[in-house]
């Protein structure tokens, strides 16, 4: 029995209207009205139910997309900066509005105004990937090949000082050019030991030297099936195998300074074994984490040069600026990143050691190659995008997969080595 019933007061005629208003949040329920309290309870319930759904029923991509500590610091920095700027605008608005008073009041008024608007604890924090520099590193052992110059018969190795960085797609950074692929999540902290990485992709000339020495036949040659390319003569321009294509003839003109392509992951292993024997040093493919660390060059942005793709910085879809090549470009044609590494962005996809996993969940730490739980797929990771890719396809975080025997005129590789502290 309601309070109205007990008090023998009239029940309002617009009971229905009030129920609707309370449900809509337009009025606070009267404690004396069961109807209104019911509406308030329903409103609370609907909102609470929606909140629970927001947390529990999440799209797969959102579930993977957890903001990292580094991103949180960036968000804090951006928000703090925006608050500061808005605070500045408020200050100017106040001068305009109260100009006369401000002049009369003089300094004392402005001091009071500033004190009243003072916001504390809003110190911007800029994320900087940590780079631990070891005193034992001797960079003089490593020579960087200048822009536009080419390496010799063996890859030119660079010293990459170890450090920490955030691998994968960081919201607000890597997704700026148009989003990340689901496989790039979650962003995760990664620690990399010092290692050595080739400045360039392995060139046609370097690979030819290997073949001359070993009479090696690549998978494209020995299987007689050729290499995958985009058939521009067929409607829809499908990617198909072309028996006439191999590293010697990838479907476009090349010379010894171009990055070798139509190379399978399996072929890379043969080259690396020969190179190791030839130089009495153990080479290998970079791990995926090492590759991304080196490609980022200490930057958190989508590309090592910033957040906007540029034909002056990399060879990708179309031509323009420094990018004069419709297909692959000679190695070393584009500026190096802060680690002096070149051509990680675009030109050719680069094979890395890791087998393919759909996401970074459960990835081992320490920058080692992730070769467990491959689910027998025989797929390996390739990184960096190629000459055919759009802007989003050459980001430092971009990754894709390929079978161990797959070859295409988009695939190439570069080599890495462990760094030995005692090395002279």
């Amino acid at each position, binding site marked *: 029995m309601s309070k109205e019933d007990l008090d023998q007061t009239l029940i309002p005629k617009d009971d*229905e209207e009030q*129920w*609707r208003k309370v*449900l*809509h*949040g*337009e009025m606070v*329920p009267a404690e004396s009205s*069961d*109807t209104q*309290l*019911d509406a*308030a*309870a*329903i*409103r*609370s*319930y*609907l*909102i*609470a*139910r*929606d*909140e629970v*759904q*927001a*947390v529990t029923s*999440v*799209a797969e991509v*959102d579930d993977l*997309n*957890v*903001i*990292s*500590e*580094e*991103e*949180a*610091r960036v*968000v*804090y920095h*951006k*928000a*703090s900066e*925006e*608050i500061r700027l808005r605070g500045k605008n408020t200050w100017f608005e106040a001068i305009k509005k109260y100009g006369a008073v401000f002049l009369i009041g003089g300094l004392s008024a402005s001091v009071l105004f500033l004190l009243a608007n003072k*916001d504390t*604890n*809003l*110190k911007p*924090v800029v994320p900087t990937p940590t780079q631990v520099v070891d005193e034992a590193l001797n960079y003089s052992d490593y020579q960087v090949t200048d822009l536009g110059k080419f390496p010799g018969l063996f890859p030119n190795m660079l010293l990459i000082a170890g450090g920490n960085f955030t691998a994968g797609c960081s*919201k*607000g950074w890597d*997704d700026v050019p148009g*989003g990340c692929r689901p496989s790039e999540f979650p962003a995760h902290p990664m620690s990399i030991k010092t290692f050595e990485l080739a400045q360039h992709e392995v060139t046609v000339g370097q690979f030819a030297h290997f073949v001359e020495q070993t009479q090696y036949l690549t998978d494209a040659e020995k299987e007689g099936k050729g290499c995958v390319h985009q058939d521009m003569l067929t409607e829809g321009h499908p990617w198909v195998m072309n028996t006439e294509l191999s590293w010697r003839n990838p479907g476009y003109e090349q010379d010894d300074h171009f990055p070798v392509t139509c190379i399978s992951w399996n072929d890379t292993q043969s080259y690396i074994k020969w190179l190791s024997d030839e130089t009495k040093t153990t080479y290998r493919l970079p791990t995926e984490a090492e590759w991304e660390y080196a490609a980022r060059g200490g930057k958190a942005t989508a590309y090592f040069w910033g957040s906007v793709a540029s034909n002056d910085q990399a060879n990708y879809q179309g031509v323009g600026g420094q990018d004069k090549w419709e297909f692959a470009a000679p190695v070393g044609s584009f500026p190096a990143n802060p680690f002096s590494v070149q051509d990680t962005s675009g030109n050719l996809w680069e094979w890395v050691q890791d087998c393919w996993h759909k996401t970074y969940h459960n990835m081992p730490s320490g920058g080692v190659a992730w070769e467990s739980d491959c689910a027998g797929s025989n797929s390996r990771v390739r990184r960096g995008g190629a000459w055919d890719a759009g802007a989003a396809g050459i980001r430092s975080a971009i990754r894709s997969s390929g079978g161990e025997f797959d070859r295409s005129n988009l695939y190439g590789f570069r080599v890495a080595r462990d760094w030995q502290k005692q090395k002279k």
Partner: protein
Amino acid sequence: MLCNLLDQKQDYGAAILSLVERYVNHFSRCYCNLSFHEKQDISQEVAIKLLCYGHKVRENCSRSWIYALVRNQCISFVRKQTTELSVLNRSTEANDDANIVGVIPPLAEGTDFGMINQIDCLQKVFDEIEIQETGKVDIAIYTQYAFGLSYVEISKRSKRTVDAVGRRISLLKKRLKNLVSEHC
């Protein structure tokens, strides 16, 4: 969670910002279909409000408060774009705090009285509605109405006519009464 963001310690606010992002994605998916950049803008605005107003609730910041913050930001954002003003929008503009934190009666408020005095009961009733043919859409309409959206606004987002939305809301009370007597 909030203190970590405000003080920039431990996870630097990663957990609370992940929650914000989750809510923004939810509202985008269920109610307002936001673009990537719009979602970014909303997240940024929420982050600004967390920094500006967070100190008021730093010790008792609840999930529902953050949810209300995001929800109101999404609604404000969509309204700014469509330049629509519902009755509720005008009324809340006069109350900045309400606009910022939302007006959400605590759940416990509804448990003390009335015919629908059990959360379990409401759960059963709305679960029953949800499994009906148009149940999910109906609940979405009711929820948006509870958010304070007008019939016109709900109509645009649910792709129903304004009359149809009004009818669904009007029928809700009767429908609930029947379901409560049946399930509770």
